[in-house]
């Protein structure tokens, strides 16, 4: 293989050595996280954690949900947010993307440019008026300000759907149209099944974003029982009001619960990312 000779790093041994050190550094924080998550309440109170796990209180993962900590509620809220956001985002992006890809209309090109240009607007610019809108709707301290915007599609996902559809020849559509099927029928019966890979990719993105979303919940949710996991563990970790130490072992249990689904979703979902042409190369998480 000619490729090996092009590497500025000369020997294989050097390369393995570097990669081993880098990998150790990158994985170290997670080892420490597991160690804290598995430590006893006593260790947690004294905050005398060891880097490698020395205690193995696997029961912590059960206790996080059975004790009086609202961890179970956090998890339910996170799941609610993610499920509804994904449904809303997938459906709205598919419909809008189909419109931009397959239906002729005046100002379509212009509207598509508008759509693309919204990608450049940072969230902070829209933050305050959006907050006022949601406050006037009486949605503060509910999950609605986090879920509902997903039902109105977003530029990036619409772009993906449109690109995906324009690469599929439209002969089937035309045939169906001659048979008297309207755009809605074509969308439902022909386009939707074909779009499965790109819709799976959008599900992954929407999941990824909302599962760890912190800023929105921080602004809109004040009651502990309504918080998603990402905000909930931060609040738990910050309750160190003088004498009281945060339940660090439980915080890390929560953090691990936040991480595991992310890895799982990528592990099982990456093939859709390939099919959509979003990742042109091996992610290596197989």
């Amino acid at each position, binding site marked *: *293989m000619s*490729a*090996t*000779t*092009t*590497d500025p790093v000369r020997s294989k041994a050097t390369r393995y050595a570097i*990669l081993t050190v*880098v*990998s150790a550094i*990158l994985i170290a*924080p*997670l080892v*420490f996280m597991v160690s804290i998550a598995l430590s006893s309440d006593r260790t947690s109170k004294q*905050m005398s954690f060891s880097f490698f796990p020395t205690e193995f209180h696997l029961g912590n993962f059960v206790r996080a949900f059975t004790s009086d900590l609202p961890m179970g509620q956090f998890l339910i809220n996170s799941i609610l947010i993610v499920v509804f956001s994904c449904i809303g985002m997938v459906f*709205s992006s598919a*419909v*809008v993307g*189909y419109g931009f890809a397959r239906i*002729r*209309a005046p100002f379509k090109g212009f*509207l598509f440019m*508008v759509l693309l240009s919204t990608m*450049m*607007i*940072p*969230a*902070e*610019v829209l*933050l*305050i*008026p*959006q907050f*006022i809108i949601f*406050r006037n709707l009486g949605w503060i301290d509910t999950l609605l300000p986090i879920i509902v915007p997903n*039902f*109105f599609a977003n530029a990036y996902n619409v772009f993906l759907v449109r690109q995906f559809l324009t690469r599929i020849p439209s002969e089937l559509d*035309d*045939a169906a*149209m*001659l048979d008297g*099927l*309207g755009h809605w029928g074509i969308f439902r*019966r*022909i386009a939707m*099944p*074909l779009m499965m890979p790109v819709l799976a990719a959008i599900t992954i993105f929407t999941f990824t974003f909302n599962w*760890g979303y*912190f800023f929105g919940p921080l602004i809109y949710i004040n009651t502990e029982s309504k918080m998603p996991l990402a905000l909930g563990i*931060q609040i738990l*970790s910050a309750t160190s009001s003088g004498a009281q130490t945060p339940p660090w072992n439980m915080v890390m249990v929560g953090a*691990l619960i*936040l991480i595991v689904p*992310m890895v799982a979703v*990528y592990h099982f979902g990456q093939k859709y990312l390939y099919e959509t042409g979003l*990742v*042109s*190369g*091996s992610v*290596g*998480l197989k």
Partner: protein
Amino acid sequence: MTTTARPGENFVPRPGGPAGPPTASLEPHRRMGAIMRPALRRKRTREALTFYAFISPWLLGFIVFTAIPMIASLVLAFTNWDSFQPPVFIGFANFVKMFTDDPLFWQALAHTLYFTVVSVPLSLLIALGLAQLLSRPMRGARFFRTIVYIPALVPLVAGAMIFKWLFAPDSGPVNGFLALFGIKGPAWLLDPNWVIPGIILLSLWQVGAGTILLIAALQGVPPELYEAARIDGASRFQQFWRLSVPLVTPILFFNLITGMISAFQVFSQVYVLTDGTSGPDNASLMMVPYVYDSAFRNYNMGYASALAWVLFLIIMALSAIVLRSSRAWVFYETEVRQ
């Protein structure tokens, strides 16, 4: 690229049937001339209405959640408003105060620049180095790639939570490790000089996402180019620097732009690592945390809007500069291949 629909889910009305070219259905209208034109126009109108029905979720969302808020925040930037009393128009006073009479704004801007200028190029360099190491076929490549990528999948809050502990001044593993070499580590997140480097280290930990893109790009470099370079007597370093790097500049450029934009909007890391928005002596106060503070701690919605707009303009300006510079250093294969 295959776009296979799954069997059973794919309803096809006439599989294999002759599908005419897209214009076929219009032909009869055209031949009949003027008489059918109103009908054609009606069809076009109906199609346009269908289009607007299809894009209505986005269009509605755009108007309500983007266009109106955008205009509103621009107007608010020229007011003094606590979000409860009616806003008071104060002209450019917010901007004048920001630039002439608000040390916190300059601190936030300086810290954000510091964070961006250090973390973005550094993570590009590390990603490029790792990608170079990982792009060659070798035993265990998949294992190492997985390890490199996993931190990038960790939600920021969870990542920040553990970094807070890694950086604990007395009992944290980072200082424990440094102590092995007789180095007394700083107080990191509690030390005004070390809090931003701490935040930078967290962002470097998540270098995997960029690495994966670069691995793909490096693997896409045609081997015959290396062959040719070797025959011409290029050293390995020259092959890397003169051949690999130029060929992956489009990906480097993409990582630079997206990295820069998101670095400028850093929030969650700061908030979690320093238990709030500002850190010791405001040492880690950055732009978005400052917007957040102004709006939701001080209820100064007008000033917060002005800050957000200034941030937006800075991001646009920097992106434009990088985009312009890209003509000089980003290399597109089509330039030579065609």
